[in-house]
């Protein structure tokens, strides 16, 4: 079983390295050195460094959901708070255009979450092709709105953005959390 504290160690290391260089310049050996581990251990935990980078968001998401348990809008505010406190790293990761960007990793997950909902909660969504389109658009709008907000080009408050996300979202956060927590061998 993979330990969550070990994953936190890895995300802390990559976050530190991302302060001074882009993700494609970060080397796995550097990350391991900072964590006092080796490549074998790294690959036991992650597919590659992009997979590790996606854990930065995943942990922020899980932590935010644990902090605020009641209203979806509050949970979304908590998520945005975490993203903002890590602004430079998120901007770097979200603006990355490479094939293995955080964007494509998140989208891959969203597709899996849709599959998960289809299987476990068929009453909520069947994810037909039309719904899949809505999901893609909604996902891209979510990312674009966060990038624009972090860039500070518009005077929009965190509350306003969280409100937009709440009313427009196709998937409820609870199901994302359920998938994140239930599907992985994380202890």
């Amino acid at each position, binding site marked *: 079983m993979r330990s969550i504290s070990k994953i936190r160690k890895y995300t802390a290391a990559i976050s530190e390295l991302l302060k001074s260089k882009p993700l494609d310049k970060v080397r796995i050996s550097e990350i391991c050195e900072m964590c006092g581990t080796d490549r074998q251990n790294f690959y036991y935990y992650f597919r590659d460094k992009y997979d590790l980078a996606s854990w930065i968001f995943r942990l922020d998401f899980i932590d935010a959901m644990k902090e605020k348990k009641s209203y979806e809008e509050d949970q979304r505010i908590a998520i945005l708070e975490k993203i903002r406190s890590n602004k430079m790293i998120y901007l770097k990761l979200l*603006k990355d255009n490479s094939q293995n960007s955080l964007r494509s990793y998140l989208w891959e997950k969203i597709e899996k979450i849709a599959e998960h909902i289809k299987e476990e909660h068929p009453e909520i969504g069947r994810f037909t092709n039309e719904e899949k389109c809505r999901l893609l658009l909604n996902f891209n709008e979510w990312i674009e709105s966060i990038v624009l907000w972090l860039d500070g080009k*518009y005077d*929009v408050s965190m509350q306003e953005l969280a409100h937009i996300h709440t009313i427009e979202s196709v998937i409820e956060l609870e199901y994302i959390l359920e998938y994140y927590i239930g599907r992985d061998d994380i202890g």
Partner: protein
Amino acid sequence: MTDEKKQKYADVFRQLLKTKAYDQVTINEICEKCGTYRPNFYYHFKSKDDLAEWIFLQDMKAVEKQKPDLLASQTELLEKMKENNVFYLKALAKKYESTLFMYMKDLLMRKTCEHIDIDYDSMDELSRFTLDFKISGWIISVWEWLSGMVDISLENLSQALYDVFSSLIKELKRGEK
């Protein structure tokens, strides 16, 4: 016959993009394949980016003729973009950093305002923000569809984009009142 000449440059540019990355295509090369010289190119276009923008504008213009039916014209625009697949994928490969992305965004934002008769410059901050991230989401979703990242039919995509667009228009109109 300026447009004919411009079209020739566009065709050659698109042809070259089939084997090269956007940044690798030089103006000299385009001129060579067109049998012209640099001054002639610069008579028609300010830069390679300017040429790319012109190509998108032609695709836009071609579909704008059927203006009243937004869904139909959008479907046609997507068809044109699909035909022009290689060009759009390469010219927009750098997403935010590509000038074509910014140009398309700006043009589509202004066209949206024009369509619903709202003055872009006097819009409130939140409406402008909403318009911006929705249009950005539109361009990126289309790019991802062109790249084959998602397996969705053109009709499904167009309908979904149209639905988003319709509710955006309603929102903006409400915001203006």
